[in-house]
């Protein structure tokens, strides 16, 4: 019997246009909690998908408990005792916990009749043993996101997995749920499981992991003992250069109210009320952060503010002007900037060049027309070139580069550049750093703060609590479409905000006074 539970030797995998895994070798010891650290696009998920049989590597060898295996599909992986807890849960919502767990391998008696009771008992046992506190008879619809994740864990336990892979498990959890998950992982280790944790969050690695392997841009960097390194060292291994964590923020110069939202109600495309009676104000020179778990009305709030969704009731006042029922174009002209959360869908036109994207919101203005009333493309290019320089956008062909060919970070920089250069009165920013590399994250956060210091009123929506805590002057916790508390920077810590985000998830309507 080998020391190693998993050995992935010289794994190479290419996709159109990129080398996702470039000759990567990692070894994971039996009964070890092993972190796989890297930025978005470093190749972590690809590597684990190869281990789980979702992809087949172009080259390389996989050994499980010392024996070479060809893992061609996830069934083989399951039979080898490898289980995966996916980032996006694969659950049937109107089925019970047990039904989801036994789906496709339902226990039957000799007449072929379903024996769900037997499975329920086993699920209950497993749940008790690992302290998962999941009711086997509950419907998935009725349980929280954190519990749904535990159902996924139970699935792997039910099929006797020895090795459990967690793919970015904390992305959807509140801080309290993260703590609970860490506890569960410790218990799994105690019971002899081998665990791989895919993540880019350093705190989690320090909290539970024994070893940590670092990937960067598809290449293997190093494997270290977590006890021997600091978070800072891990970060610089991940990014490839020293990283400054703390952002220096100038003292706030709060001005008059620029955006006054009162009793706003917005319905989504299915006519479900997603924002309910929401009231908030944003002042000149401040950043107001909206903290909350994904799906609590943040998207609809932004869509309602920018005009993509109609407002059912309530008012939106921008610098004294009622924009509640104005068109999108009018709102932009009055001074509303918007960095949308889905930059490909709403932020830019991938087929357009950078210069065309740079003027997407104001190309119709007279200053962009020649005296013959045709569009002045050289001027577009000039403006885009300026923005490329100012925002350090890395391009292949300068302003003529097609936007879709840029990396995510550079696309986001281009969008932020456009919005800032329109010098709006209020800037809505959603998920500005999702999926970006650390360099771009630093840059964009710095620019957001600069705009604040220039007197911009900014609404920031982010699922990254750290981002909210670092950048915002005031923090509003949102839950089920309502603001459940607003605090000044420094008045609360992550735990307290986390409690709020979760509190009315369980007790609806119970407001916490701020």
């Amino acid at each position: 019997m080998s020391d190693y539970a998993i050995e992935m030797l010289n794994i190479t995998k290419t996709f159109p246009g990129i080398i996702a895994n470039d000759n990567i070798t990692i070894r994971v010891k039996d009964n070890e909690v092993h972190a796989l650290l890297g930025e978005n696009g470093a190749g972590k998920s690809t590597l684990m998908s190869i281990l789980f049989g979702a992809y087949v590597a172009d080259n390389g060898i996989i050994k499980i408990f010392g024996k070479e295996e060809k893992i061609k599909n996830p069934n083989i992986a399951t039979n080898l005792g490898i289980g995966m807890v996916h980032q996006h849960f694969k659950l049937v919502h109107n089925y019970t916990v047990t039904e989801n767990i036994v789906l496709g391998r339902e226990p039957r008696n000799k007449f072929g009749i379903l024996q769900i009771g037997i499975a329920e008992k086993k699920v209950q046992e497993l749940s008790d043993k690992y302290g998962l506190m999941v009711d086997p008879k509950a419907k998935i619809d009725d349980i929280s996101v954190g519990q749904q994740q535990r159902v996924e864990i139970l699935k792997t336990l039910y099929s006797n997995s020895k090795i459990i892979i967690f793919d970015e498990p904390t992305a959807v959890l509140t801080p309290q749920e993260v703590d609970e998950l860490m506890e569960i992982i410790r218990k799994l280790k105690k019971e002899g499981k081998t665990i791989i944790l895919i993540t880019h969050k350093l705190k989690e690695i320090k909290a539970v992991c024994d070893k940590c392997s670092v990937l960067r841009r598809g290449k293997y960097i190093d494997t270290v003992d977590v006890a021997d390194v600091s978070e800072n060292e891990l970060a610089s291994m991940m990014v490839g250069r020293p990283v400054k964590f703390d952002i220096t923020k100038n003292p706030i110069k709060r001005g008059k109210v620029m955006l006054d939202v009162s009793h706003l109600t917005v319905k989504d495309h299915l006519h479900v009320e997603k924002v309910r009676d929401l009231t908030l104000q944003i002042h000149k020179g401040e950043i107001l952060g909206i903290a909350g778990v994904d799906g609590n009305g943040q998207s609809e709030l932004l869509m309602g503010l920018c005009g993509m969704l109609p407002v059912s009731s309530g008012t939106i006042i921008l610098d004294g002007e009622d924009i509640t029922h104005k068109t999108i174009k009018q709102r932009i002209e009055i001074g509303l900037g918007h960095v949308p959360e889905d930059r490909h869908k709403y932020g830019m036109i991938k087929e357009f060049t950078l210069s065309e994207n740079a003027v997407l919101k104001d190309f119709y203005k007279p200053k962009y027309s020649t005296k013959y009333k045709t569009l002045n493309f050289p001027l577009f290019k000039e403006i885009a070139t300026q923005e490329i320089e100012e925002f350090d956008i890395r391009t292949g062909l300068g302003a003529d580069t097609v936007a879709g060919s840029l990396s995510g970070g550079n696309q986001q920089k281009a969008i932020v550049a456009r919005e800032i250069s329109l010098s709006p009165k209020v800037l809505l920013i959603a998920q500005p750093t999702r999926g970006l590399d650390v360099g771009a994250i630093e840059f964009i956060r710095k620019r957001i703060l600069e705009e604040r210091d220039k007197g911009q009123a900014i609404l920031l929506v982010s699922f990254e609590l750290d981002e909210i805590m670092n950048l915002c002057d005031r923090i509003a916790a949102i839950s089920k479409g309502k603001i459940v508390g607003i605090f000044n920077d420094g008045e609360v810590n992550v735990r307290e905000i986390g409690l709020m985000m979760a509190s009315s998830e369980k007790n609806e309507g119970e407001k916490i006074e701020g």
Partner: protein
Amino acid sequence: MKDNTAEKKSFFDRLLDSDVMISILVVILGFIVGTLLIAIVGKNPADMFSSIFDSMFGMARNNGTWNFRYIGETFAYSMPYILCGLAMGLPARVGLFNIGAEGQYIMGMTAAQSVALLVTPFPGLWVFCIIAALIAGSLWGGIVGILKAKYNVSEVVATIMLNYIALYSSRLISFQLPGATTYNTATLPAFSKLTKFLIPTSNLNVGVFFVIIAVAVYYFVINKTKLGFAMRATGFNKNASKCSGISTVKSITTSMLIAGAFAGMAGAIVLLGGAFPKGRIITGMDNYGFMGIAVSLVGNNTAIGNLLAGILFGILKQSQSLMQSRNIPKEITLIIQGLIVVFISLRSGLEIIKQRRNTKKLRKEALSK
């Protein structure tokens, strides 16, 4: 390092990168398969090519003299193809599939002949006929545009239905015109006819200028104006356009209005261009509108591409009569046109090949280290 790899790009890679080259390749492929078919049925492909050649350059093979009438007819046939290609192409740039050029063409023709027959003739009547056709086609397209933009009604279904409504409305209206019989109306007044131009023996007429203007307008609107910018943005990404304050309703509706005008003009030019002495009571569709779909596909929705593809289709149409006289089944031109349309789907196939080649290259690079 990187510059080296760029230089080493093979001919095949460069071919894959060029839309124009792919269009040309597709046309050549269509002809190759067409040639094979002719050979298989035991005819001489050379006769097919000589017919096509003569339609292009106006040589009369049998007695070795020039016959410019062929060129004239070729361009006369090209006119409706080009216009209907534009009618397909403009909405395509906005992300719509305008199957309705046929209906817009019919309405344009009907409006033109109504004006021609109902208004007391005066010099320059033809200008008003064309204007009526522009308006009628435009309305027919605009209805679809508004339905699509405001209520998200599928433009494919709406245009197909409107094609039939156009066909039968045209009959209803034309039966009311002076001198209507089962097949045609009274003779069109001379003032309503388009003046012959350059080659008087053929049907080539001043419509050519309108076609050239239409191509120029298409190019100008798409590439130079605010409207075209908004249209292209809408076509690529409706959500982002909307979120940026661009009125997608306006882009969509205007594109259909202009497209309808192009197709309507085609109807007027065919009617008034010389081939029909009397007003028409149509029993079926002329198919120029449907061929416009193919023209636009081959021309890749660009102004110049549409122009060239339209001329190609005109050449094929004109060569039909020459082929018949040389014992080649004229249907081969339709087969070639069909093949070209089928091969156009190679564009996406080639896209896959391109990706595969890139992956392979990358894999080699990765493994060779």
